[in-house]
């Protein structure tokens, strides 16, 4: 289900999506005006990462680069702000997961 607003009463029409990119191994399509947050949301993807410490799901929050909640791995580079990254053809985007225990039997807040 796409969340793209193709028809808007005041802003008019926009073209359909056609920029392919890879999200966690799956091919999705976005538009040339998209950031990674909007391209993923257009594909109904809200969960961008799991919190490093408790594994809780996180998504975009401010969408303009201020909060860093939207961190993803882009073409192998970790912790890129998805909302500040413009979608490019064939980009590889991956969600980030909980960090492993650092010490045996240790707590995550070590």
């Amino acid at each position, binding site marked *: 289900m796409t*969340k*793209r*607003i*193709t028809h*808007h*009463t*005041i*802003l008019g029409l*926009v073209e359909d999506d056609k920029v392919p990119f890879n999200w966690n191994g799956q091919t999705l399509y976005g*538009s040339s*005006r*998209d*950031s990674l*947050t*909007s391209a993923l*949301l*257009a594909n109904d993807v*809200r*969960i*961008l990462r799991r*919190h490093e410490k408790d594994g*809780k*799901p*996180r*998504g*975009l*929050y*401010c*969408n*303009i*680069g*201020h909060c860093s909640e939207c961190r993803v791995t882009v073409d192998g580079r970790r912790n890129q702000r998805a*909302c*500040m*990254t*413009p979608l490019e053809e064939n980009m590889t985007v991956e969600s980030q997961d909980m960090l492993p225990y650092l010490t045996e039997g240790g707590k995550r807040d070590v």
Partner: protein
Amino acid sequence: MFDTIIIGSGPAGLSAAGILKDGQNVLIIDEYYHPGGRLLGQLYEEEKDVWWNGQEIADSLFGDVKEAVAFRPSTSVINIEKDAHFTIHTTRGTFESYNVIVATGAREKSFPLPGWDLPGVMTVGAAQVLTNFQRVAPGDRGVIIGMNPLSLVIALELGYADIEVAKICLPPDNPLNEQSPVDAFETLLALGGLAPSKFIASASRLGAKLPLSHKAAVKLFPKSGVNAMGLPISIREKVTRINGREQVESVTVHEVDSKGRILPKKSRTIPCDFVCISDGLAPLSEICSLLNMKHVYIESLGGYVPLHDNRMRTEIENLYVAGNITGIENAKVAMLQGELAASQIIGDEANSRTTLEKINHERYYAKVKFHPELTRGKEQLESLWLEYMK
């Protein structure tokens, strides 16, 4: 070496570039991938059938300068140093200039409440950019928490895109939140006189129907809210938590008494798939802080602003500020402030004077006003400046 580096390509930065472009070697730096700053997404009816379309304005301001100045998008300024000239460190290299205009704009404030970290919770500004710039719906059905000019304007914008707003409510009580039903009611009334859209007219009518004191009026406010201009506003209800397992599924709202105290037994659940939190705007001034510049706290300007005079000069020679970093106002004021800072740089006193007059005029007649005491805040700032520079 550039004559001037402008940090921020919002309305202030782009308008400054428009003045400087013919005589100077100018670089504009912005961390976003498209010029325009917070113009991108703005959309409201200024008068009947006259729309303020922020992206169109951004594209035209940028179109005017793009051949004549250097522009570096997707580049964040991370440090700044000053000796004989300025050195600007960014995520994509270091640049030098004789003058700097800091036009970094504003950030949105939020209040925490249980469940606010769930995917699907976002600021109203995030919903604005998604809906009007990127053209992606933040969800099918949303709840907005917080009542201020920005959240109400954006609620209308969601409506233009046929996205349902199920409720606009007050935030819950905690040491950081203090919007009472009376405050919210006053916000609605103030908007009635000032703001641009049709909402205003309905909100004013609402005020007219409730002529008593504001406190008494709040008591009369229907518990389930009113429907003003299609906006389902509740000032007698507060959202107490956001619910969902992996993403937003609903919010829990509690009824409150006229003082804003929660009535524990009176709650209900509103299903929704997104939530917008809005606690107003604050100037974004880290870059001035990096230079250890003096800041002053002025509530009506949105919080801490770098000390500056009404010509955009700061305590650091050749460093100017413009736009929302000087206090929260609309984009038209920001554009004029950019022109003023640029006129100061090229020593155009005549243009500075006329621009200053235009700023005062726009401030007075502004369609979008963020704080009723703004003019007093600006006066306070001016006297603090004079005292500091003595």
